[in-house]
């Protein structure tokens, strides 16, 4: 036994350490994903017998106007969330200065990340409240009336996604702060010797070193935008009349409220495919970048 162990431990130790995670991942993520695809091919109310319907759920989905509303809203989320990495980077650069009191400022920017997204949703719901909200108070100062953002089909998604953007910016800021701490001092020193300062230093010495972090920030942001659910659930419940639903929320609504698990699973599968496509593209880019570095 000990000899066997000694001879094989170089591969067995990592294998054993990875095993629990692998088992959990295959059970909770992989198996569940496959089952979802399987369910999406059935008509099922969640309790009774599953009836095989083939691709009927997808055919219906293709004709469902609500599905396109959700898809469109997911794209709006994505576009708004794309603001998070640049704003996060800007904030990180600002709060990364060695100035007295900066630590407090840093922690203030960090606060939204500590809050649960549901809390952020509730708080922003108050901000948007057309009668007593902060927004109305601000408009009131100028003698105006704030628009009821969450009641307006044209603004609801923008308002909810903007609320979601807040913690996302903080998240990107933290990522970039970590990246800034890992900058190569030698390169910066060399840049100084060559006379690079301010913008030039940022553009040619700092930013290239942050490209990996930037890549991660964008990836996390895209996934965050695609799987947005909790903010919608808390702030609008997909309303008014379904105009602010996203794919994840529509899936939940179809499965839980309308008892159409097959149809919900079909929506989940579509969302899954979109994410897989994005992740494949992302990994492809990551590998390419690493190869060109090496």
């Amino acid at each position, binding site marked *: 036994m000990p000899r066997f162990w000694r001879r094989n431990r170089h591969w067995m130790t990592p294998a054993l350490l990875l095993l629990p995670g692998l088992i959990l991942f295959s059970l909770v993520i992989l198996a569940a994903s496959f089952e979802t695809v399987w369910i999406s091919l059935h008509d099922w109310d*969640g309790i009774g017998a599953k009836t095989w319907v083939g691709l009927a759920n997808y055919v219906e989905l293709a004709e469902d106007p609500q599905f396109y509303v959700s898809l469109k809203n997911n794209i709006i989320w994505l576009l708004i969330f794309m603001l998070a990495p640049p704003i996060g980077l800007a904030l990180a650069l600002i709060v990364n200065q060695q100035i007295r009191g900066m630590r407090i400022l840093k922690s203030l920017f960090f606060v939204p990340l500590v809050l649960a997204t549901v809390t952020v949703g509730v708080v922003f719901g108050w901000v*948007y*409240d057309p009668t007593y909200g902060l927004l109305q108070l601000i408009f009131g100062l100028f003698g105006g009336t704030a628009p*009821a953002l969450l*009641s307006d089909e044209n603004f609801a998604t923008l308002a909810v996604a903007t609320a979601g953007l807040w913690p996302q910016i903080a998240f990107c800021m933290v990522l970039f702060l970590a990246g800034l701490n890992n900058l190569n001092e030698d390169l910066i020193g060399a840049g100084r010797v060559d006379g690079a300062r301010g913008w030039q230093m940022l553009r040619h010495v700092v930013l290239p070193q942050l490209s990996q972090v930037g890549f991660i920030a964008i990836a996390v942001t895209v996934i965050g935008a695609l799987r947005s659910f909790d903010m919608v659930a808390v702030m609008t419940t997909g309303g008014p009349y379904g105009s602010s639903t996203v794919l994840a929320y529509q899936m939940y*609504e179809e499965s839980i409220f*309308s008892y159409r698990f097959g149809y919900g699973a079909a929506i989940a599968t579509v969302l899954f495919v979109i994410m897989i496509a994005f992740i494949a593209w992302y990994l492809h880019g990551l590998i390419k970048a690493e190869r060109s570095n090496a």
Partner: protein
Amino acid sequence: MAIDVTTLSTTRRRFLKGTGAALAASATSGLCLPALAQAQEITIISNLSNVGQRDILHRLAAEYEAKSGAKITINNMDHEAHKTAIRSYLVVGAPDICFWFSGNRMKAFVNKSLFDDISDLFARENYKSVLGATTNAVTVGDKQYGLPMGGLLWGLFYRKDVFAEHNWTPPKTWTDFLAFGDAAKSAGMVPMSMGTKELWPAGGWFDHMNLRINGLDKHIALMDGKVQYTDPMLTPVFDKWNDLIKAGFFSPNHSSFGWEQAGAALAQKKAAMMDLGGFVRSAFPEADIPQLAYAPFPEVATGVARYEDFSVNSVHVPTNAKNKQGARDFLAYFYKPENLGAFLAAEGAIPPRNDCPPSKDPLVNAAVEELKKVVGTSQYYDRDTDPDMAQEGMTGLQEFMVKPERRDQILERLEKTRKRIFG
């Protein structure tokens, strides 16, 4: 090492078993307990959000434990979360007793054989003689599948002091209603407080309009999917409703807030009336509750008999319950007039039994009196029709209230959904 493995594994297995049983007992229902203990064990899953009711349920359980020697475990769940959880626990790990809603919501589980037929309990305790028409709410094909709990009578609520101050009386006819709206607006108030974030208040308004114009039978036919949403019978319903929307009857931006905020607007004298059940009282400060009064929804089309939404909650024994006999015995105790009366008084609901002690709540007594004048009752939009249809329907009704000009598109969409569900 090898020698120890057997003993070690048995103790470990025993340990796991014991922990598992303890966990299951405390968390859900005591599934893993040995058969002997189950005979004395009754588990209940409650969805009561009212603290007073929960306290009374616990008190009754304790009294029953002392009396019978049974062990009762009550697991309280969040009301909304329970609506989704019940679908899984009825199949795997059912308790012995659970709370739910009668009518179509109950029927969905009865059709899947997930609720036990308790007609024997009805016969044994002679419930039919004291329940009267409420029996129908828990009956499917001549068999009873639950005990009706408190009923909620829906109608228009208002503040007595506000009405006295303006010299108003609750509107009785459609002409009165329109005139009342004008009066409320000139007094600087919203005539009808409305919050449609949770969708169902829009469904309730539709119920009232349809019951007052088309009557109960046609309304139920629509709920059962037998009438098209594009049927001309609905034209006057939406025409008249549209008149109210155009006349500014409802709270602006009502899709931004829920019924509780709408109820608060009524309490704060910003709105004149509100269409809801008696639980609107929970949006009122304790001191203002005596000012709250009930008035029936006004007549819309002349000559239509008075029908109302009267939704009934209920309590059930799941088919997969471990201790069905124990469940029946406890329910019989729980359902005694004085126990049930105390339980329902905490909620302000109308007792289904006619031998419960009279309520101290004038609002409940008023509703009981009103109920005697009602010719027939429906439950509520989302309880009367298929859940899938209800979700689509309430969304459409909310959209109609915001964009009445889209009526035709909305009704066509609902008709498409109706066809998909009911064929």
